[in-house]
């Protein structure tokens, strides 16, 4: 016999189910209960940097939009600083959550473009936003990252993107700039399946 390791086990995940909106975004689901909804404003009114909008859809293995998904985003400010890790602008939370339109599955978030953040090594990572999504049928929340198409040089040197062996799959993480809007479609399964991370 050996001594027993006394670590606890992480609570196992369960799907957020079809009604996640009443719990985490009740106002957006047409249900007025809280004085203030959390996660509606990622950057706040005083954030420095370029204001951007990101639009997209999450789709399933059949290519159909997932209309009941809930997405959370986490990002640094334009100077590459995460809240809690240094001084950021008052009101800059760096975190937000969004649900799509129930009819079309289209979602959009407004924020500022994040700056570069130091990676594990000496270099900087390319600007990116961390995404985490849950829905009915997703047993454990899925983590991915959004990178920006107009940061090609930085993307080419990004240590995380370079971990992806199949170079064409790196493109699944790059939001395409079209005018003032970035397009970021997430495919859970099948053709052009998005790269998801075990973080």
């Amino acid at each position, binding site marked *: 016999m050996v001594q027993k390791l*006394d*670590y*606890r*086990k*992480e609570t*196992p*995940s*369960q*799907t*957020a*189910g*079809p*009604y*996640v*909106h*009443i*719990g985490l975004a*009740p106002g957006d*689901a*047409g*249900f007025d*209960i809280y*004085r*203030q909804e959390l996660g509606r404003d990622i950057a706040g009114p005083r954030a420095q940097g370029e204001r951007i909008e990101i639009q997209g859809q999450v789709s*399933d*293995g059949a290519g159909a939009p997932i209309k009941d998904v809930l997405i*959370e985003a*986490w990002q640094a400010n334009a100077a590459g600083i*995460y*809240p*809690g890790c*240094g001084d950021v602008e008052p009101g800059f*939370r*760096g*975190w937000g959550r969004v649900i799509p339109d*129930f009819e079309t599955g289209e979602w959009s978030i407004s924020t500022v473009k994040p700056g570069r*953040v*130091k*990676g*594990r090594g*000496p270099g900087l*990572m390319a600007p*990116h936003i*961390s995404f985490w999504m849950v829905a009915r*049928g*997703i*047993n*454990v*929340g899925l983590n991915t990252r959004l990178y920006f198409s107009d940061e090609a040089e930085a993307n080419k040197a990004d240590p*995380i993107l370079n*971990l992806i062996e199949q170079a064409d799959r790196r493109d699944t993480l790059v939001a395409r700039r079209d005018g003032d809007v970035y397009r970021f479609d997430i495919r*859970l*399964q*099948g053709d052009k*399946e998005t*790269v*998801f*991370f*075990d*973080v």
Partner: protein
Amino acid sequence: MTQPPDLYQRDRDWHPPAYTQNYKTSVSRSPKNALLSLESTLSELSGPTFGHSDVDPLDNDLIRNYAKTGDPIGERIILHGRVLDENGKPVPNTLVEIWQANAGGRYRHKKDTYLAAIDPNFGGCGRTLTDEHGCYRFRTIKPGAYPWRNWINSWRPAHIHVSVFGPSFAQRLITQLYFEGDPLIAKCPIVNTIPDQRAIDQLVAALDLNATVPLDSIAYKFDIVLRGHRSTYFENRPEGN
């Protein structure tokens, strides 16, 4: 800013896999490719924080936070517990959010068309911050079981959805808690996405007679464990490496 310590790796044999045939919706919503394992960076180890200005005192009282003409119908319960990490260390000041069906098994959601009645005095969601010891507390009514379209005769055990943060975004967790003694737990295809019975048992809240309000509310205790941080006594990756 030095990087916060890494987290213990998530035990993917303890969590449900993405593809679980008997929970049918997962079939087309599960990635076919393997997840790409990352050594955490600041992007995963940092995370949002919340404070008392984000949450109102009544937000954790589901008996009162949507009441219009009186109390909601159903069995009054206290739901309480602690948020800890895998090292057994309390997780203070973290946001805990819950949502649930009413006593008849109906959600206040426009997509829920189950014939059980909406309760005009019950909203079905609440939120709170853990205190300095990692403790949280809600007052609510016990949700009812309800049918759902998986097989034609599928019934969800009574459950409450729970969302928790922790200091690192990579600790983010959503789960469901069940109630001690419910015979539907063993039959549920969503519960049974979890391969290990010990992990399922970790989702069953225990009747806690010590925490009741006598002659008023019964109580259940549900502890939540988030991923733990590694110790940093020996730095194996010095600066510049």
